[in-house]
């Protein structure tokens, strides 16, 4: 211990600082570049405060609801084992990685005015469902983020050693006791971070909020940024709005960091978790019903995307496969980069057990979630345009920016596992003089592998479906799959577009599943 403390500058710290600098440059640096290019002063308009209010209220409600619903779902998944559980866990990741337009059309096919639910209602003489408005925004955001919250909580549960539950059973603890002694501490450790992450995701939402929000009432800060660039070409205002978004992000990150109480947990010896306390019939029914409802809520829109897409697949030609190939390459590069960044920041954070430096590394990792894709893209464009042809940078820039955007999720997933590794085995490793690569391989990696698999899969899938950042860099001759999909839609080819959407979803899900299962295979 003493030996390590003396080593002020460790390789982990250097790598962490490098990663932090890169993320800060991409997020805050691009705002500075945009502000520097502005001719008008940085200022906000009256409508921007209304946008702030709407943004915060919808994000708070969406995040609260996503997290609240995720608790019973994650608990049910954690304490039940059934056929198809693994598949369900993988599929539950799907909504989160859907491209926005595909998700919106899928949601509308179920909950829209012409959707399944409305069709049933109309059949029985009721008025069709109306989801447009605040509830539509919240519905869509819960659809996107409930799965993410569930996965983050589930990971918390899975870090509880099976022995704890065995001991609890020997002590004759009831479900309520277990909840108090074991589960509540898990939630206190994981929920604030999950809440903050989802809150910020909803803050930067734009097309979903607008489309389901039913009109200009549903103006978010990100839409105001878009307007500043496109409608007004007022980069001063865009930069001011981007800073506002960062301020929200910073606040949420600090609050989450202060609220989260991490507690050291013992190593897991027995792989199988058996829950003697919840073998009773009522609890089994409650869990099954909850899982069924959530699965229906999340998977029905996906099923509609599938049904719709099958008609369109036949209309696609060879170009779509080239686009798919490019997207897969970008996704893989982005996934690897995300993992490297997350490990660099995470290891730097745990190498300083406590204090402001650890918090600093963690907060930096959060930065990019509050970044505006529009501002990052524009800032990079301003920097790169004098030097190179933007189109030639399309794929590398996409991979890099998507890696930065996925970093918060990756860090959220891997950091608790790293902390646990250090808390439980750190002293032993110190006493053995384990450092550097050996410490990582023997101590950290076994703990973080499931989280790393999940995070890498998420990064790959998110990168696959992203369009936002790269619009300015798009190379017309080398379209990625999402761009190809939008081109189809922009040329009246809606049926072919749904085929491309199905392909995109399938490829994203496949990438996610491969990484995720690779991670979970270790357990």
């Amino acid at each position, binding site marked *: 211990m003493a030996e390590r403390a003396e080593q002020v500058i460790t390789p982990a710290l250097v790598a962490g600082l490098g990663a932090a600098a890169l993320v800060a440059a991409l997020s805050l640096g691009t705002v500075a570049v945009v502000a520097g290019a502005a001719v008008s002063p940085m200022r906000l308009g009256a409508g921007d405060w209304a946008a702030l209010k709407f943004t915060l209220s919808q994000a708070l409600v969406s995040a609260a609801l996503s997290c609240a619903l995720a608790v019973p779902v994650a608990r049910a998944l954690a304490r039940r084992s059934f056929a198809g559980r693994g598949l369900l866990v993988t599929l539950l990741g799907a909504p989160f990685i859907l491209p926005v337009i595909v998700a919106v*059309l899928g949601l509308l096919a179920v909950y829209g005015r012409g*959707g399944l639910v409305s069709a049933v209602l109309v059949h029985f003489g009721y008025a069709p469902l109306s989801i447009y408005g605040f509830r539509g925004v919240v519905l869509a955001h819960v659809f996107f983020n409930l799965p993410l919250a569930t996965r983050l909580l589930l990971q918390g549960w899975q870090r509880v050693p099976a022995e704890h539950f065995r001991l609890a059973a020997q002590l004759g603890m009831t479900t309520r006791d277990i909840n108090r002694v074991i589960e509540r501490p898990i939630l206190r450790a994981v929920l604030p971070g999950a809440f903050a992450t989802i809150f910020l995701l909803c803050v930067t939402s734009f097309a979903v909020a*607008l489309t389901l*929000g039913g009109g200009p009432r549903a103006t978010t800060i990100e*839409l105001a940024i878009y307007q500043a660039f496109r*409608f007004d*070409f007022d980069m001063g205002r865009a930069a001011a709005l981007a800073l506002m978004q960062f301020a929200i992000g910073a606040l949420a990150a600090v609050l989450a960091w202060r609220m989260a109480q991490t507690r050291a947990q013992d190593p897991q010896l027995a792989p199988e978790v058996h829950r003697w306390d919840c073998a009773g019939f009522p609890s089994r029914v409650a869990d099954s019903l909850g899982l069924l409802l959530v699965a229906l809520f999340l998977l029905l829109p996906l099923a509609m995307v599938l049904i719709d897409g099958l008609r369109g697949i036949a209309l696609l030609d060879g170009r779509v496969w080239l686009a798919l190939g490019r997207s897969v390459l970008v996704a893989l590069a982005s996934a690897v980069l995300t993992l490297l960044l997350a490990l660099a920041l995470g290891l730097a954070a745990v190498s300083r057990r406590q204090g402001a430096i650890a918090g600093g590394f963690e907060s930096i990792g959060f930065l990019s979630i509050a970044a505006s894709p529009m501002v990052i893209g524009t800032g990079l464009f301003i920097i790169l345009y004098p030097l190179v042809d933007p189109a030639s940078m399309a794929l590398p820039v996409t991979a890099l920016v998507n890696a930065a955007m996925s970093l918060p999720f990756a860090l959220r997933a891997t950091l608790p596992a790293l902390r646990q590794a250090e808390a439980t085995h750190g002293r032993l490793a110190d006493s053995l003089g384990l450092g550097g690569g050996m410490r990582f391989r023997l101590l950290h990696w076994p703990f973080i592998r499931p989280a790393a698999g999940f995070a890498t899969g998420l990064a790959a899938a998110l990168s696959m479906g992203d369009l936002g950042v790269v619009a300015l860099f798009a190379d017309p001759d080398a379209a990625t799959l999402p761009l190809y999909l939008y081109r189809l839609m922009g*040329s*009246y080819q809606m049926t072919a577009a749904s085929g491309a959407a199905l392909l995109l979803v399938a490829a994203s899900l496949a990438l996610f599943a491969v990484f995720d299962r690779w991670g979970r295979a270790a357990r």
Partner: protein
Amino acid sequence: MFRISLMAAGLALTLAGASMAAEKPVLNVYTYDSFASDWGPGPKVEKAFEAICDCDLKFTTAGDGAALLARVQLEGKRSRADVVLGLDTNLTARAAASGLFAPHGITPENLAVPGGWNDPLFLPFDWGYFAFVYDKTKLGTVPHSFRELAAAPDSLKIVIEDPRSSTPGLGLLLWVKAAYGDKAPEIWKGLAPHILTVTKGWSEAYGMFLKGEADMVLSYTTSPAYHLIAENDNSKAAAIFDEGHYMQIEVAGKMATAPHPDLADKFLKFMMSEKFQSLIPTTNWMYPAVRLKEGLPKGFAAPIPADKALILSPEQALVARDAALAEWQSALSK
């Protein structure tokens, strides 16, 4: 030895060929995404122009007209663009004020754009009327004016595009303004209950309409022609409004900083030719800017009469849009 020199000669020829190809000047045309896409006019235009220009035509794309202008403004005087194709007259005042465009010096002949043309910086390449498109098999009573639409039962829903992020959205804003002037807020208040939602762009709105989410969608009078010609489906129609229809005139201009000004001129001339113009109707699904020898393709409805055309001049549009946006936002935010 002989074989080696033959190979060397072959290599030299190949290299010469490569360097000749490399010497071909590259004409950079910035345009919106759907123009350059595989289904748009882009690939055919490229082939036809390269056959006569001894150059390499390269498209660079931005999302739509407004994104295109923002991109050129971002690049400023350092821009490598020769020609910008795909702005519309609601954007040209801002584009002209940027000082980035040079006079085209062309007097267009045989023009089919209602109202004529005398802009020294920009030339029209196609045009159309904004309109609400509906499905004939589903919508019983079709409104024929904004007032009728406002008076229709609340169950009649339309989906429109957001003027802040979409060119058709801005078009609708100016349509209502051009037709009703100071009464525009009143019209928007009447339309509000019918507006199912507002989307980021045309694709989302049209997609939602085709999925049966809304009864009508803001698109173009030429949209039904696509369904008829490309899909053999005559169920779609555009509602013709008594107030008249706002026009979108799409234009192109030469950059003042064009690296190849002569080629840019040549391209703009080509753009006004029969060859280019005849590609427009069934690839861009708009009316060509000049009268075609063969007339419009079969299935393309004749445009509504020119006296029903509404349009604000570029200067009027620039002056009107901020106030019109504020009216729109306040009427729809209640």
